[in-house]
């Protein structure tokens, strides 16, 4: 008998600990509903020094009621916390370290806080475990970074603690699953509690408490690009990408990230793409946030399906009315899921195309520049060739290598960059700033976003470099130099070498692809303004205030 009790204690410490912690906050609980007025006290009792805490910070949705209150706890009571989260993006996330409440962080992206974070590292106020991709971080939630406490955000809850996350589910399921099933504590802030939820996204039995926030959770329309800001150069690059990559390799399954350059591609599919007869031939299946700039292509019948990482403000009614295209719940609203969309982007798409701040002569790319610790988000997972892939597609096979009956295909990883950014800063450089950051500011390895050996194509305003076709490193470099304009790398291009590479299809200039530079004009855009997007959407798209000009 004594031995059995000891054994129980030995193997159920997490469950016992959870019960104890829940008991300590019972004073503020009515059923599963927490008193929002007492949230600071609740957090102080709930979280123990050294705890691993996941504070939901996504690319878009933020558990900001919980983060604001967590930053207000007494550092005497809660300190040395180990924060795990995708996006360290809110000012109070950084405050946690400044106040000593948190000590260590494992994360993926820090966008708006990248400067402050670098300063904290400099001052020795924060220890960075690692800067992950989203998938790596989610993976580690189930291996060695499982949270003791998860603080998440949802649209609504019912009395049983069931959560409705609506269009912006993002990574809530991944976080909650990892925490709840290893006896961690899950607390969800909600915009409201209701009797009946439109649908259940997270079962109540996985959730320990819900609290109604003082205001709806913060969310950013990160993927909204105003077509008015797309210039002729972006349109030229879009034409080159469509002819030189999408059409050449019949790319049907793909991912687009944030950016005006990819928005330009989306907006000329119904015009330029249509004139090439490519509807149904390319760009049919997407892993993609609900980009408003894709509306004209959807309405013109280009798109069969879209699975989304997150939602996008203003797109809710449009998505609900286009359930053939988007993944929606029985209530009609979007179901996004970052973990699954990342997995889809890694394994089930044939092409990733994205931009970067710097690209070196070997096509290594990085968005890390001196004094900033921004991280990666999802680009490295989508922008890499997954060697574990075993299913074939036309586009994947188009890049096949190897023989003796053991040929295998390759994912298309495309960098789309203008040779210079505004104010004379070259994008294509001899050495990445990232290369000088090893050992500094929390980087055990250079913060390379996409490694050059994964990159198959580079598209600039000057043309396309088909790096995967290069015979050797010298040819790869020469091909990149041939389209690198007047950057230091581009100044090394030699005419004869370039001619030879063009002859064998390692480099293509606009004229080789049948693209006339003079045709690169805004009149090619299927929508030239936000108002046009609204018109295309049948008035179903409702842009956020800051994007409205009427």
């Amino acid at each position: 008998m004594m031995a059995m009790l000891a054994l129980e204690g030995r193997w159920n410490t997490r469950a016992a600990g959870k019960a104890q912690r829940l008991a300590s906050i019972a004073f503020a609980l009515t059923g599963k509903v927490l008193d929002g007025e007492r949230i600071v006290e609740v957090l102080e009792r709930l979280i123990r020094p050294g705890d691993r805490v996941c504070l939901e910070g996504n690319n878009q949705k933020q558990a900001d009621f919980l983060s604001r209150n967590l930053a207000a706890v007494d550092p005497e009571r809660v300190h040395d916390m180990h924060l795990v989260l995708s996006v360290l993006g809110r000012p109070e996330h950084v405050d946690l370290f400044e106040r000593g409440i948190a000590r260590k962080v494992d994360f993926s992206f820090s966008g708006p806080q990248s400067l402050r974070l670098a300063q904290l590292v400099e001052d020795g106020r924060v220890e960075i475990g690692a800067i992950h991709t989203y998938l790596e971080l989610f993976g580690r939630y189930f291996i060695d970074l499982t949270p003791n406490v998860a603080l998440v955000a949802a649209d609504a809850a019912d009395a049983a603690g069931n959560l409705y996350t609506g269009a912006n589910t993002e990574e809530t399921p991944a976080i909650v699953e990892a925490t709840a099933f290893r006896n961690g504590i899950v607390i969800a802030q909600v915009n409201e509690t209701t009797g009946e939820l439109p649908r259940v996204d997270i079962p109540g039995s996985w959730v320990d408490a819900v609290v109604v926030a003082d205001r709806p959770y913060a969310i950013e329309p990160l993927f909204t690009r105003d077509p008015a800001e797309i210039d002729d150069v972006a349109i030229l690059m879009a034409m080159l990408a469509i002819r030189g990559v999408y059409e050449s390799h019949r790319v049907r399954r793909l991912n687009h990230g944030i950016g005006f350059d990819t928005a330009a591609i989306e907006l000329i599919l119904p015009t330029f793409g249509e004139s090439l007869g490519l509807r149904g031939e390319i760009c049919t299946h997407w892993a993609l946030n609900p980009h408003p700039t894709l509306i004209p292509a959807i309405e013109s019948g280009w798109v069969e399906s879209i699975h989304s990482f997150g939602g996008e403000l203003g797109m809710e009614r449009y998505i609900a009315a286009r359930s053939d295209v988007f993944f929606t719940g029985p209530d009609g609203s979007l179901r996004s899921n970052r973990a699954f969309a990342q997995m889809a982007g890694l394994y089930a798409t044939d092409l990733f195309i994205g931009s970067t701040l710097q690209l070196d002569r070997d096509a290594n790319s990085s968005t890390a520049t001196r004094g900033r610790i921004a991280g990666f988000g999802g680009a490295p997972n989508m922008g890499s060739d997954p060697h574990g892939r075993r299913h074939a597609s036309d586009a994947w096979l188009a890049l096949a290598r190897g023989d003796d009956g053991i040929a295998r295909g390759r994912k298309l990883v495309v960098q789309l960059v203008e040779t210079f950014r505004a104010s004379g800063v070259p994008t294509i450089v001899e050495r990445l700033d990232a290369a000088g950051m090893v050992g500094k500011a929390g980087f055990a390895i250079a913060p390379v976003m996409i490694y050059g050996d994964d990159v198959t194509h580079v598209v600039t305003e000057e043309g396309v470099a088909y790096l995967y076709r290069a015979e050797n490193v010298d040819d790869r470099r020469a091909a990149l130099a041939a389209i690198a304009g007047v950057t230091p790398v581009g100044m090394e291009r030699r005419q004869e070498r370039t001619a030879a590479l063009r002859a064998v299809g390692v480099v293509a200039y606009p004229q080789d692809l049948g693209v006339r530079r003079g045709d690169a004009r805004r009149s090619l855009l299927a929508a030239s303004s936000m108002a046009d997007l609204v018109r295309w959407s049948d008035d179903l798209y409702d842009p956020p205030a800051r994007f409205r000009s009427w």
Partner: protein
Amino acid sequence: MQRIVLERAGGTPVTKRAHLGAVASGNLEVLCEPPAGDGATIVVSTSVDGYEPVWRATLERFLEQHFIAAAIEINDFGATPAMVSLRLEQALELAR
């Protein structure tokens, strides 16, 4: 504010005047017309200082690609080399 002048002898004269673009952020105005004398002259006024080598390389490449005789004036407000090249191509198309 910086002024950059580039000259090259020879070339086939453009036949018409062409004007496009605007002096607006990230954009530039290009005036292209038949030359008074022989050869090509490009005169740049730019609001951004310190990028003369980038300008010269961009313009030299344009003249390498097009053996034209023309008087070209550029009034720039921080356009990228890509935008400069594209506007020059567009102007040339109109002026030929």
